[in-house]
Structures are given as structure tokens and as C-alpha cells.
């Protein structure tokens, strides 16, 4: 209780401490070593390390990777930017690329001959700021509909493909002690991310959140909760919580991403499969958000090393390395051809490969202004799903300020 003075006071103090430690311990590595900062977990780091080593050898450098927790990455990057200690290669979550690029901390990848050919439009959009490509994601992800194969067989229903079918399936699968569907509608960007497929597939955009299409999308999701086919706890669930609910058998279907596959495989007695998220009407195009971390080359003031870093990024993001990284972390190779290869091996992956082809970058429309819209979206969803406001008023109120 007595640890901090105020939120930001503490943060500033932390920045001071970080600053000091950066000065003392920030001895820049020698010119022959590329420093990579990424957000890999202990399980996926070894897979990437192999790729890093291969690519470092290719460009004639050594490589040293520092792993930072995803939640703390931006703070670290900002601190490094202000103290001039940015790494040679920086991994950023794709919706953050424009934000950081707009600050001037990154260099365009086109300088190093990386035009972004062969990548889906969403991947290129996510890495582009002001017409220049700053980041490229070798592997990507999105959300889909996972389901319990036995539960659906028992109820005698097929995996849903439209909103009506999803609703009917959720209703039929809801039993005592089990909800039909689980998803995350948390008051964080995770809640926004999971709502976007409904919003976008229904023809609504994040710059006009009070449109009839947006209201319709929110009404649909809201209906699932109000009618009891999904728990009202969805407003407090992270995507990890959702996965736990699904594995525990408390939900027959869930909206989630391919990164859960290792955990789902490990769950005993669970026969699961995945299909693309249902669309409003049969024949509509699914527009899901594109996830994944992009590699960028920060401006470190050392042109020779930046050029090496550019070659390194070109190598890491090349098709031949994508498959290993994708399998290692439960993701989809972003190169269309390699993705097809991955899809042929695993039907669950195939689902996400399909969705990724039409997936949309969250920052394509609003660029660095995206966080503001993302906050409005999760706020509206929270207002509606908790019963505080009807969907139309919820969107109205969330976009007021």
C-alpha cells in the first residue's frame, strides 16, 4: 500500500532508475554483434534463436537477443529511445509499429531492400506508416472459433458459419454448468481485438462507431450474453481465461487465437477443432484483425550496423524461416505460399491461414490514433454487456469524449 506515491510519480521514478541503470550497464555491444529486443516467452525463444543464429551467420555478425515482457515493451522502447540505447533490431506488436514509427525512432525497411512483396495486404498495412514500410511480421495470427467436437456431435449440430447459426449453436450447446460460447470482452485492447471481427465483417469502421452496422454488431454480441448463451463474466475474462474455461469444459465453443494450440493439445481428453469466425450472412467476407509481431530496424545512428540489421530482418522474415517460427509459437506464416504449406499439415492451422488472407490491420485506417478508438470500442462493449446501456446508447456514450 505504501510502496508508491502516485501512479505516474512512481513511473517517473522507475524511468529515472531505468535511466541510471542504462547508463551504468548499457555498454553497447561491439560492432560485430547485433542486439535484438523481442517479446518471446521461454518456450518460443529457442525456436527463434535458431533462426537468429542462422541469419546472423548469413550477414556475418553475431547476435544477442534480449527478451522483454510484452506488456513492458513500449515502456522499455521509450526509455531506450530517450537515452539513445535502442537495439539494432526491435520486435514490436504490429498495432504499435505506426505509433513508434511516427515518433521517428524507426528507419524504413525499403532502405534495406525489403519491399514487402509476397506478404498479405494486412501484414504490409500494419507495418506501413505514412507510405513507408517500417515493420514486417514473419508470422501472424488472428482469431477463430474453436469448438469441442464431442459437444457438437452430441447436440447434433454442424460448426456455425453465420451469426444466426452461431447464436443457434450457442443456444443448443448451453447446458447446466456449461455455456455455449466463451470470448473475451475485457476492458482492455484484448476485448477490442475480439470484437473487431463482428464490427468489420458487418461493414462498420472504427472511425464511425455509431453507424447502424456497428450497433447491429454490438447488439449481436450483446444478445449472446443477455440470453445467457455466454457468461456475463466475459467482461472480465482475458483470452487466457477464455482458454481455461474452454479446456475446463465450461464452454463448448470459444473465440480465440492459434497461440492456444499447444495448451489445447496438452489438455487431456479434449477433441477440439477450429473454423473461421461466422459472418453476418452466408457469402459475407470475414474481416478479422491481424495479430503478430513485426521486426523493425531502429535508428541507432550507426548506418553500417543498421544496414546489417536490415539484412538480418530480411533474412528472419524470409519464407524459409517462417515455418519453424510459426510451428514453434502456434501462428501462421505470413508468406502466402509457406502458409499454404503449413495449412496442408494441420487443419486447425488451415482455418487461421484462411482468415489471415483477408485479415485487416488495426492501424490501417487511423494510424497512431488507433489506441483512442480501441478504448472507445471496449468501453462501448463493456457498457452494453454489463447492461448499463443498450448497444446504440453504449456506442454513443463511448464515443462522446
Amino acid at each position, binding site marked *: 500500500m505504501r510502496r508508491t506515491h502516485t501512479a*505516474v510519480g512512481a*513511473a517517473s521514478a522507475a524511468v*529515472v532508475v531505468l535511466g541510471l541503470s542504462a547508463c551504468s550497464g548499457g555498454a553497447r555491444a561491439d560492432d560485430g554483434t547485433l542486439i535484438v529486443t523481442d517479446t518471446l516467452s521461454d518456450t518460443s525463444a529457442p525456436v527463434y534463436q535458431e533462426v537468429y543464429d542462422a541469419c546472423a551467420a548469413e550477414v556475418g555478425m553475431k547476435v544477442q537477443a534480449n527478451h522483454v515482457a510484452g506488456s513492458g515493451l*513500449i515502456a522499455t522502447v521509450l526509455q531506450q*529511445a*530517450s537515452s539513445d540505447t535502442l537495439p539494432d533490431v526491435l520486435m514490436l506488436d504490429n498495432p504499435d509499429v505506426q505509433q*513508434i514509427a511516427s*515518433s521517428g525512432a524507426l528507419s524504413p525497411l525499403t532502405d534495406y531492400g525489403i519491399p514487402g512483396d509476397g506478404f498479405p495486404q494486412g501484414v504490409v498495412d500494419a507495418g506501413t506508416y505514412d507510405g513507408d514500410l517500417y515493420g514486417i511480421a514473419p508470422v501472424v495470427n488472428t482469431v477463430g472459433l474453436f469448438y469441442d467436437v464431442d459437444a457438437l456431435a452430441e447436440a447434433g449440430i454442424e460448426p456455425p458459419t453465420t451469426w444466426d447459426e452461431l447464436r443457434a449453436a450457442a443456444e443448443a450447446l448451453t447446458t447446466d454448468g456449461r455455456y455455449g460460447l466463451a470470448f473475451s470482452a475485457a476492458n482492455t485492447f484484448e476485448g477490442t481485438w475480439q470484437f473487431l471481427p463482428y464490427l468489420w465483417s458487418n461493414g462498420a469502421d472504427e472511425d464511425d462507431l455509431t453507424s447502424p452496422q456497428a450497433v447491429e454488431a454490438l447488439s449481436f454480441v450483446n444478445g449472446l450474453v443477455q440470453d445467457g448463451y455466454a457468461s456475463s463474466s466475459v467482461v472480465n475474462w482475458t483470452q487466457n481465461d477464455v482458454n481455461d474455461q474452454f479446456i475446463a469444459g465450461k464452454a463448448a465453443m470459444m473465440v480465440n487465437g492459434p497461440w492456444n494450440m499447444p495448451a489445447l493439445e496438452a489438455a487431456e481428453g479434449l477433441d477440439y477443432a477450429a473454423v473461421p469466425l461466422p459472418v453476418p450472412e452466408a457469402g459475407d467476407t470475414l474481416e478479422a484483425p491481424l495479430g503478430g509481431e513485426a521486426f523493425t530496424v531502429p535508428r541507432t545512428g550507426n548506418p553500417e550496423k543498421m544496414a546489417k540489421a536490415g539484412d538480418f530482418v530480411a533474412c528472419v522474415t524470409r519464407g524459409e524461416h517462417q515455418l519453424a517460427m510459426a510451428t514453434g509459437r502456434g501462428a501462421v506464416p505470413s508468406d502466402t505460399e509457406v502458409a499454404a504449406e503449413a495449412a496442408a499439415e494441420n487443419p486447425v492451422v488451415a482455418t487461421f491461414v484462411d482468415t489471415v488472407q483477408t485479415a485487416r490491420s488495426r492501424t490501417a485506417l487511423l494510424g497512431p490514433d488507433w489506441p483512442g478508438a480501441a478504448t472507445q470500442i471496449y468501453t462501448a462493449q463493456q457498457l452494453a454487456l*454489463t447492461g448499463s446501456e443498450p448497444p446504440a446508447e453504449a456506442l454513443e456514450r463511448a464515443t462522446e469524449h
Partner: protein
Amino acid sequence: MTTTLAGPAPVVAPGRGADRRRSRARMRERTAQWLFLVPAIAYVLVFFGYPIVKNLVMGSQDYTVRTFVSGEAPWVGLDNYVEVVTSGLFRTTVLNTALFTIGSIVGQFVIGLLFALFFKRRFPLGNVLRSLLLLPWLLPMIAGTAVWKWILDQDGGVLNEALGTIGIAPVHWLTSPDVALVAVVLVNVWVGIPFNMTLLYSGLQNIPDELYEAGALDGATGAKAFWHITWPNLRPVVSVVLVLGVIYTLKVLDIILGLTGGGPANATQTLATDSYRRSFQEFSFGTGAAVSNILIVVSLLFAVVYLRVNKRAVDE
């Protein structure tokens, strides 16, 4: 000290050497004094002065991610404050902050006082139990909130299961905007009880037993003894506990972030969480700093109250 000051010329003029020696000794003393002060001053400047001044300045700047690279933070005067105060969220956060603080303080204080009174009676294992009650204070807050989140889960959480056995329908502790603030206050009360109990207990220890013995002779026992002996003697400690409690509660961030993240539908969004959200989710460091400056001013008011109360307590 006055003896070393230059007075009227002494009758016997001391040698110049003696004079010089004395002034050198004085210099050395001065230097030593400063050397003792330097670490404290440096600490205060680096860890309190700089962050607070930086935060005040930041509150009047358009401080974004761009600033970290270019170093440019255009001065915007009071624009950030205007934006914060006129936003639809401001009324909610202020009200939530007030309700959260008042609810937490009342709960912590009353329960803490009851425990303190309880443990004042000596009984076997009393000290062991009292130290066990300190646990919430020792537990890392994030671990504590994770467990509470599980206890308060609406479907299958321990609390709702227990309530279910006596026929109470599941309460949506963390997912209903009407109840979430109550749930968060509940957890914060749990965290704050040890602090209140410990200080009040030591306050109780300082009340001489003779007062109670004398009071008992005059017929003051039980509740009467509490109102006429315990309470007046405990008052200085009570004021300090309450004021410190308010300051600590105003800025609570980790408990709320861990339990609800400010939701559902901003039902538990306080000034502290709003400042965090603006700064570290939307990267609008200027408005985030403005919110926390408002919080600093409110805390400062209570800090002044604390200093005055404390002074009175010492004087008494």
C-alpha cells in the same frame, strides 16, 4: 555557538594562529554537517523532487511517444486539465475515487479497531494469531488479487458457492457495474486491516492500565470504559491512522488493475487507474500526468492535515 562569534575586542588579543585554527575548525564542522546532509538531500531531489517537478511540467505539455525520440514536448498550458475535467469519465472517476476511499477507510478502520481491542485481551496464541493477521500486508499484491479474482468468480467462485449453500443467488462480484466497486473495496479492506490493527494496537498498549482500574472503581467498565477512557486516549493515533489511510487509499492502483482493470464499464475506474490508462495504454502522457497531478494535490491536502494532526499528537 555565540562564544565563537566576533564580539567586542578581547582584552588580551589572541594570536592570529589561534584565530585561524578556530575558523578552520568551524569550517571543518560546517563541511561535516553538509556531508551528513548531502545523501538525504540528493535522495529527496532525485527520487521525490525530480519526479514531482517532471510530472507537474508534463501535465502542461503535449507529451507523447514522439517526445521520447525528438525531445519535443510543446507547452499547452492548461489544455490537458481542460480535456481531463471535461471528459465524460471525470465525474465517474472522482466519484469512484471518493467512494472507494471512504468505503475502504471505514471498513479497514472499524475492523482493524475491533481486532486491536480483541487482541488487547491476553489469551493463549494471541500473539501468533495477531502476526498471522499481518499476512495480507506481506503478500505480493498481484498474487493477492489473483486469488481474490478466483474467489469472487461468479460461476464457481468459492464465495458464490458458499453463498449458494445458504440459498443466495450468485452475485456478479466483478462483472456487474453495480457490485464491482463494492467487491474492490472489500479486497482493499482486507489488505488494509493489518495496517490499522497494528497502529491501533500499539496505541492501545500505550494507555496506562491504571486509568482502567480507576475507571472501574467509578463504575466505568465495558462500553463505558471504551467511550470515556480508550477512545479519548486513542484519538491522536486514530487521526494519524485515518489520514495516512486516506493518502494510501487514494492512489491504490495494483488492486484495481489486478481485479477489474477499472471495469466493468468503468465502474471501478479511479483517478489513479485513469492516469495509468491514459499514460500507458493510450500513450497520452500529458493528460495522464494531469490526472495524477490532480491526485497529488488531493493527497497533499490530506498530507497537510496529517502533519497538523501529528504535531498536535506530539504536543499532547
